[in-house]
């Protein structure tokens, strides 16, 4: 067929620039750099600080899956993150579950919570969607404040990290770091795969032009809901890992300001870029860490950076770099 010949001729150049695992060449380079940084940094920097970055980076990537690829701004992602932390912490401490099971349970509960919440919220778009997610997250906060298993104001403390697969003792920070790095990279690759899958194509179509996607016969609510549940589940995994790293799960994890923080991270890094939220999380956590001596001024400085980002480089740090290099990152 004549059409086939033309098609293959026109398609071929694209296959040349393919990297691996569906990464384009620039993305493949960025991913290798990311892996190298993750592998080398614990020998140079304090591992607990790095683990915090990795947990929040995964959280931000999960959040970005919704805002960046479906165009849904959730303002209640702390609910899934915090619930993941509580569930992982409780099962590890009270029931003595091994860390891999606790973390996965945190993710499962995050996803299970995301199902009804998402089902309700996707009925509306824009600011109404954000407000519904916030309201539902506030209900989770109240639940966590009252429920006996969360320890109320004290939270769950002294959560044991346990022994991974019954073999690796995670009590040392370095051992825990490698698990965290693995969870982060696995989550990151999963999100990359979701974005670059047949499903991801439909998501991007919905983000770009929802009425048109409907007119092509796509039942858009179902796609939004699946994306929401995946995002909530990954946020739960991030929260569960964080609980084991710091040995605590507290109300801070479900507080609305945590939802705000993840918005900030994604914005600073670059919405709709796979790598942006990682950079954003690193920037924000580093700031919080090194500016901690300024006390409440951290918030003022964060606010200033947020304003600077929105005014000066709207695409975020990585978004601007990708734009300047004319590549997708």
């Amino acid at each position, binding site marked *: 067929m004549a*059409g086939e010949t*033309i098609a293959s001729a026109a398609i071929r150049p694209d296959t040349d620039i393919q990297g691996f695992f569906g990464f384009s060449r620039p993305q493949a380079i960025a991913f290798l750099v990311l892996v190298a940084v993750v592998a080398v940094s614990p020998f140079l920097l304090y591992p607990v600080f790095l683990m915090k970055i990795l947990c929040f980076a995964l959280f931000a990537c999960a959040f970005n899956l919704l805002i960046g690829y479906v165009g849904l701004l959730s303002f209640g992602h702390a609910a899934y993150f915090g619930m993941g932390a509580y569930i992982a912490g409780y099962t590890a401490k009270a029931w003595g579950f091994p860390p891999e099971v606790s973390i996965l349970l945190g993710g499962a509960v995050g996803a299970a919570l995301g199902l009804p919440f998402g089902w309700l919220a996707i009925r509306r778009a824009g600011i109404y969607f954000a407000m519904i997610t916030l309201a539902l997250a506030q209900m989770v906060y109240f639940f966590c404040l009252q429920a006996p298993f969360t320890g109320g104001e004290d939270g769950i403390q002294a959560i044991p990290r346990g022994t991974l697969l019954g073999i690796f003792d995670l009590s040392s920070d370095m051992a825990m770091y490698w698990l965290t790095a693995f969870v982060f990279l696995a989550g990151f690759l999963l999100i990359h795969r979701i974005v670059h899958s*047949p499903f991801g194509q439909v998501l991007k*179509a919905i983000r770009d*032009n929802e009425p*048109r996607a409907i007119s092509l016969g796509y039942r858009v609510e179902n796609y939004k809901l699946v994306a929401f549940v995946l995002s909530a589940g990954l946020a739960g995994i991030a929260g569960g890992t964080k609980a084991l790293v710091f040995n605590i799960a507290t109300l801070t994890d479900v507080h609305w300001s945590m939802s705000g923080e993840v918005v900030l991270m994604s914005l600073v890094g670059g919405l709709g870029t796979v790598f942006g939220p990682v950079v954003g999380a690193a920037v924000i956590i580093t700031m919080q860490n090194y500016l901690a001596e300024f006390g409440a001024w951290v918030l003022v400085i964060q606010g200033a950076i947020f304003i600077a980002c929105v005014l000066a480089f709207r695409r975020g740090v990585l978004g601007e770099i990708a734009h300047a290099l004319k590549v997708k990152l």
Partner: protein
Amino acid sequence: MSDTILETEGLTKEFRGFVAVSDVRLQVRRGSIHGLIGPNGAGKTTCFNLLTKFLPPTRGAIRYDGRDITGMKPAEVARLGLVRSFQISAVFPHLTVLENVRVALQRHRGGSFDFWRAESVLKSLDGRAMELLEDVGLTGYAKVNAGELPYGRKRALEIATTLALDPVMLLLDEPTAGMTHEDVDRIISLVKRVAQGRTVLLVEHNLKVVSGLCDTITVLARGAVLAEGDYAAVSANPDVQAAYLGTDPGIAGGGH
């Protein structure tokens, strides 16, 4: 199989007391190109949105292919082969031209909920997508982001995307709106070509466009059917002339 593919009865849409579409009875013959025309504000686009279920009607019934679709959702109607275009060119701006068509072709592989599978499984659709792009003269643009296309090309892409679904019936909302003369001619010949073996309902503001294209024309004015017939009959109708030329201020100003 009945001769009429799309049929409405007493179709009415009111917006807070304002009657945009009033008691419209429309019958579209299978395999025909049917024009829905009228001056600005005649209710064409509202009528169009009712037919594609993007708006719920206040009263009346819509039957498509012998089936009552009045209570259906827009995505369900699309799945029955009744596919619409939009007045504002509806492309996915951040997807490439090829991906735009491919997203429509993806519908043939089912739900596409497989988020664990690599995008490369869609490569099998690229051949068909390129054929469709060739059909509308967009082969050279395959790798370009759809948002960067010139306006006329976007309309062409939209038609290619619509055709990717292999629709039974096409509903085109002002396919030539805002186009240059050469583009208008290209789209007219394209519509003629794609109408082979399908039914087309076309909303148009421009009488000239429908003259060479449509088998049957329904003229709307102030939300109601004013006249119906072929171009010669409709254009000779004094009521239609009045509505278009504005000799009767009551009709010319209607609907604003």
